């Protein structure tokens, strides 16, 4: 083992090297039982690694699909705006001899009141449900604007400068204007004028992040509290168990009510799919595979406070909790070596799971009624079942809720 170093040359002549030659080819004597037990543990470790790798891949795919869906959704929302016809530039018409009249016409560059309006825009304007535009279009045709400037100017003033006695309605639709860069200072576009913004409906996914990244729970010595079958044989006992809990998949539907403009309360339904795989090792070398799947339904309750609402973005905090109960579970115990099916074990399956969490949410609104959001936060889970779950391994965990919210 030549190394390019003076130190190695020095080491070559070191008389202590005799120790190394004395130990050459040394093999640690493990007895057969030790070797078998170690190999079983190695195989279990490999299974865990493979499952962890699969989960990692699943999470990656889920993330990519979510991002792709969000991108498609954003595209669907914004493409019509990108390809929408540009608003026409307004140009003053022929100079009027009346100075006041000319000033008024130039100042108010609303497309409605200007004669340079493209004919293509006329049907759109006429079809508009906006009361102010209808009002403007009623008696004064575009020809009118040209021929009867006094009428047109009078109508512009009504549109642009609301009277002092009448408060300006922020909900009133705006007309195109050169002064606006769309989406910056204008209120959010909305689908309907009807209804308030008191209620909201959200479709979301809920992920526990620690469990996605961490190692599974491993117990070398575990009591037989879940097992009343094979261990009844005389002299047979459990020498160890290895657990692997998959990352629970949760999706939910939540309803919210805005108590005030900033404060809202949310509740709903949360479905959770949880999978576990356990290998039980017995002293005679038998390994029993235990596959467990549970479907739970939960009720979350959250209080959220909106801190910032700027443009299309909203920043809020959310605090609350949830309680989940299992609706259905399946449990299969098999022995790989003998291919035998063993009757399901009897255990307390009432896995009521309590949790509390706090999160910071960021919402992006495509329009007034539709937005997407992400809520990273922390949660604490309390499992009341005797059967350990992934939440026993990671009671305190990072969480991430993502979803789409509808306001109505």
């Amino acid at each position, binding site marked *: *083992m030549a*190394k390019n*170093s003076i*130190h*190695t040359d020095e*080491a070559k002549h*070191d*008389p*202590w*090297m*005799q*120790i*190394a030659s*004395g*130990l050459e*080819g*040394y*093999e*640690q*004597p*493990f007895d057969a039982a*030790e*070797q078998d037990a*170690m*190999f079983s*543990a*190695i*195989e279990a*470790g*490999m299974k865990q*690694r*493979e499952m962890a790798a699969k989960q990692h891949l699943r999470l990656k795919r889920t993330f990519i699909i979510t991002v792709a869906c969000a991108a498609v959704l954003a595209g669907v929302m914004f493409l019509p705006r990108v390809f929408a016809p540009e608003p026409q530039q307004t140009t003053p018409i022929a100079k009027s001899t009346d100075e006041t009249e000319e000033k008024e016409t130039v100042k108010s560059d609303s497309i409605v009141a200007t004669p340079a309006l493209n004919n293509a825009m006329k049907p759109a304007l006429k079809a508009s449900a906006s009361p102010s535009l209808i009002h403007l279009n009623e008696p004064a045709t575009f020809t009118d604007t040209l021929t009867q400037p006094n009428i047109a100017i009078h109508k512009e003033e009504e549109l642009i400068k609301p009277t002092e006695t009448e408060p300006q309605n922020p909900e009133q639709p705006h007309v195109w204007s050169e002064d606006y860069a769309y989406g910056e200072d204008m209120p959010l576009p909305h689908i309907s004028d009807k209804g308030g913004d008191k209620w909201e409906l959200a479709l979301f996914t809920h992920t526990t992040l620690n469990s996605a990244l961490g190692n599974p729970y491993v117990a070398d010595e575990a009591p037989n509290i879940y097992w009343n079958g094979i261990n009844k044989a005389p002299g047979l006992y459990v020498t160890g168990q290895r657990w692997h809990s998959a990352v629970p998949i949760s999706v939910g539907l939540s309803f919210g009510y805005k108590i005030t403009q900033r404060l809202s309360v949310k509740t709903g339904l949360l479905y959770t799919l949880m999978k576990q795989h356990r290998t039980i090792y017995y002293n005679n070398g038998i390994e029993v595979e235990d596959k467990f799947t549970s479907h739970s339904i939960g009720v979350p309750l959250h209080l959220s406070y909106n801190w910032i609402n700027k443009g299309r973005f909203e920043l809020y905090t959310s605090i609350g909790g949830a309680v989940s109960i299992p609706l259905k579970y399946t449990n299969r115990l098999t022995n790989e070596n003998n291919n035998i099916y063993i009757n399901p074990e009897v255990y307390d399956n009432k896995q009521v799971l309590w949790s509390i969490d706090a999160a910071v949410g960021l919402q992006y609104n495509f329009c007034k009624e539709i937005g997407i959001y992400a809520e990273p936060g922390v949660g604490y889970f309390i499992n009341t079942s005797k059967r350990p779950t992934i939440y026993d391994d990671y009671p305190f965990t990072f969480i991430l809720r993502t979803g789409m919210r509808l306001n109505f």
Partner: protein
Amino acid sequence: MAHISDEQQLVESLARGDKNARARVYKQYVGAIGGICRRYIGNDNELKDVVQDTFIEIFSSAHRFRRQDRGSLWGWMHRIAVRVAIRHLRNNKLLENIDEIEIPDSTEEEPPPIITRLTAEQIMGCIQSLSATYRTVCNLYLFEHKTHIEIGKILGIEPDSSAARLSRAKQKLREIIISRYGKE
């Protein structure tokens, strides 16, 4: 050790996750891997854990093994075993910081003559009696043929500190051998 083409097939089978290949490699190398790990790990239970972790590491990274880069399969497994053992010592804080130790006054570092007559098990017993820190430096220098610069990088210490530890480890080993088996 296996023939090159056999080894190549074995590695490919390992990379595919073949359970039989794992069993074959395990049976073939468990003693030798155990021997390497035992030089570093004093406790029997910990030794088993480290051997298991080594094989898990070997099996799960088999797809990364390239003969032209890493030499023989055994050499590659050997390096993994050493890495896993040192990681175990470090994670369990068994490599205590003894940088402040003084260079010993005695310069008696020569091995006692009886060393040539000791069995492998006796030598292993003496090495096991060293503290983890001395044992690790001794192992890296005498068995893995690492330079003090390399040892310093592996253990996160200065090369001089590595040399000082080795010097002290040799003295300790000498004392242990003489006390157990005599000088001649």
